[in-house]
């Protein structure tokens, strides 16, 4: 059952504040990840793979790089006359006076939502690294005759972000939602992916507007008793990006074959804007171990346990270890880099040494020359 009757909605700015370094110049959705992707590629490709043909992307701020990345949506086959991809920039809503949040984004675009005339709406953020089968989630929703389905994973919530956890009965119904206040055991932690009936969403938004409710969690919690709200369990790899450290960890997790094969399986490809780079070149004496390397790199030095994005140069004698090196970074001769995240276009001069710790990587901002 392809999810043709579902409108996909993606919040590109949600949780921007949890990784201020990476989102200084961009949205959470356009944070580079896995060598050649942006975080939004994962939910967007997942939606397209599930058969969704109409997707709206909410943007609040700093969305230049996001627009550049998704363009007219052709990469995802979403450049269409009917339906397709729509960017939904902030719609100022003077009457509502609601704060800058998801509910106000949705309410500001309620016309777009109702014009879609889809039966269902799927809401998601960009900060969860996983592969959620939205088609299966829809099937689950129909089986359970649910009003709302919220995806969750059994994991230890992070104290870094405001998480919600669910108490779920034997039928899969969510009976209680709580803001998490303990961080030592596995809970049914929300991954902020919600599938619900479109008409219900519209009704809830009008209600939120009149009652001045500004966050989704409160909105759903208030209606828990009178709606059929079910929990959909996400199996497999799930990791929330809620700090630079968790970004670093999620990146290095890609070096594990089970994680890589799960996220990049042949039957659900992750689409992204092409870079038209050449294949990567390895020179004489190049030594590369346990690393993920995108196209357009030139490697003459040593690389171990790293993610190299497109167009990275590692000069001869340079040693790069346990690091995430973003697009077009140049690492000079005999430089030594360990536990470092370099943003795009960074230059590390010859013979420089930079060393972070595994639980505290050094982050170097876009375009910085060291």
């Amino acid at each position, binding site marked *: 059952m392809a999810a043709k009757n579902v409108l996909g909605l993606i919040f590109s700015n949600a949780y921007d504040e949890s990784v201020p370094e990476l989102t200084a110049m961009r949205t959470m959705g356009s944070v580079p990840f896995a060598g050649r992707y942006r975080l939004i590629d994962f939910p967007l490709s997942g939606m397209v793979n599930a058969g969704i043909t109409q997707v709206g992307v909410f943007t609040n701020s700093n969305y230049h790089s996001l627009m550049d990345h998704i363009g007219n949506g052709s990469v995802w086959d979403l450049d269409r006359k009917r339906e397709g991809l729509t960017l939904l920039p902030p719609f100022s809503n003077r009457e509502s006076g609601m704060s800058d949040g998801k509910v106000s984004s949705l309410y500001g675009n309620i016309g777009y939502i109702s014009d879609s005339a889809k039966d269902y709406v799927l809401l998601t953020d960009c900060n969860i690294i996983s592969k959620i089968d939205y088609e299966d989630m829809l099937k689950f929703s129909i089986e359970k005759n649910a009003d709302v389905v919220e995806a969750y994973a059994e994991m230890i919530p992070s104290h870094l972000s405001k998480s919600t956890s669910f108490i779920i009965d034997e039928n899969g119904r969510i009976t209680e939602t709580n803001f998490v206040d303990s961080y030592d055991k596995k809970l049914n932690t929300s991954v902020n992916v919600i599938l619900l009936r479109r008409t219900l969403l519209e009704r809830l938004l009008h209600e939120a507007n009149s009652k001045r409710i500004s966050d989704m969690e409160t909105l759903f919690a208030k209606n828990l008793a009178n709606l059929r709200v079910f929990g959909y369990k996400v199996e497999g790899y799930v990791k929330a990006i809620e700090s630079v450290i968790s970004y670093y960890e999620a990146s290095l997790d890609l070096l594990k074959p089970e994680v890589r094969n799960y996220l990049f399986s042949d039957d659900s490809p992750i689409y992204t804007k092409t870079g*038209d780079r*050449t*294949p990567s070149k*390895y*020179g004489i*004496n190049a030594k*590369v171990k346990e690393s993920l*390397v*995108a196209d357009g790199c030139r490697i003459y030095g040593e*690389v171990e346990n790293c993610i190299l994005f497109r167009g990275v140069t590692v000069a001869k004698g340079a040693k790069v270890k346990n690091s995430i090196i973003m697009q077009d970074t140049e690492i000079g001769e005999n430089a030594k880099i360990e536990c470092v995240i370099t943003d795009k276009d960074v230059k590390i001069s010859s013979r420089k040494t930079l060393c972070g710790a595994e639980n505290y990587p050094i982050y170097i901002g876009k375009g910085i020359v060291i």
Partner: protein
Amino acid sequence: MARKPECIAMLLAGGQGSRLGILTKNIAKPAVPYGGKYRIIDFPLSNCVNSGIYTVGVLTQYQPLVLNDYIGNGQPWDLDRSAGGVHILSPYQQIKGTEWYKGTANAIYQNINFIERYNPEYVLILSGDHIYKMDYSKMLDYHKEKNADCTIAMLEVPWEEASRFGLMILNDDGSISEFEEKPKNPRSNKASMGVYVFTWEKLRKYLIEDEANKNSGNDFGHDVIPAMKENGERMFAYQFDGYWKDVGTINSLWDANLDLLNPKVDLELDDDNWKIYSRSPIAPPHFAGKDSVIENSMITEGCEIHGNVDFSVLFANVRIEEGANVKYSIVMPGTIIKKGATVQYSIVAENAVIEEGATVGMSPESMSNIDDWGVAVVGNGVTIGNNAVVAPKAMVDEDMGGAE
């Protein structure tokens, strides 16, 4: 005023490339993979858009399926356009009957209507057989500056190879005084690259006359160019001096790939001002495992490497298992080389499987008779069994059983 192109390109992509043997069994030569993520036709197509030519007719005839599919709507080259863009032109049925493209000139003749639709001043004729980066707009400027009727791109080739080409003898002003197609005893080493700019009005006239001439082979080099020369049309040579390679044979295809690994060869694909575009594979970055040793090689996205790779070009989604050795080889998309297998001095086509312990190809140094040496070729989808041996120069296009 409508956007009328000054110049349109006609790309001859119907060639079989029979000397590439099993590599062109099911695909036309321009669709042959090259350089890790390209096909030969990416070069003339990218040259066109980089030169500001946005209307391109691609003439296909031999095994067009893969090529048509690959070009699609032209989006990877920015040739998906409302005005102009890329058009696949196959032979078609007409009221007077059905005709294949008899020769290069006839192929253009049959598409006069297509060209007339754009009514350009100039037509650029290209072939889909060569690896080179060339700014056609400079050649077009030269054509206009010389007020020429025909300008032929020219390259100086080694004398010993000259007899394989159409050769030109030039006057001091760059005009062509004599033209000889593949002469036995060359008097010049100035070779035609098969890239022509014609003033369309003139070319149209000659194509019609050529078609009416029952004795003509309907070929540019043999018939149309000599006819124009004979009638005293203004014909000039435009000198090109970059990298240019005809990848018409197995050895030249192998060489041209390995040229990418040679810093002394003047073919830089990683040039932001002259990108070579291609339809990119949808694959994650490549992964180099803890036991991998990769040197002097080009590796494309989607590869998974756990063995040894030296002086080789690996296309997308190739898998090299632990202990496998790949040397001086070209490995096309989706191929798997299993544990302990050795692939050297070889071209392995798409989706082949080289089973454990198999050996493909040999180094020239290890041959007792160097004349027996050649690049070994494994065809599309072929499986080479456990411990089987593929001899140098062999072309294998059927599965080969294992050996003990």
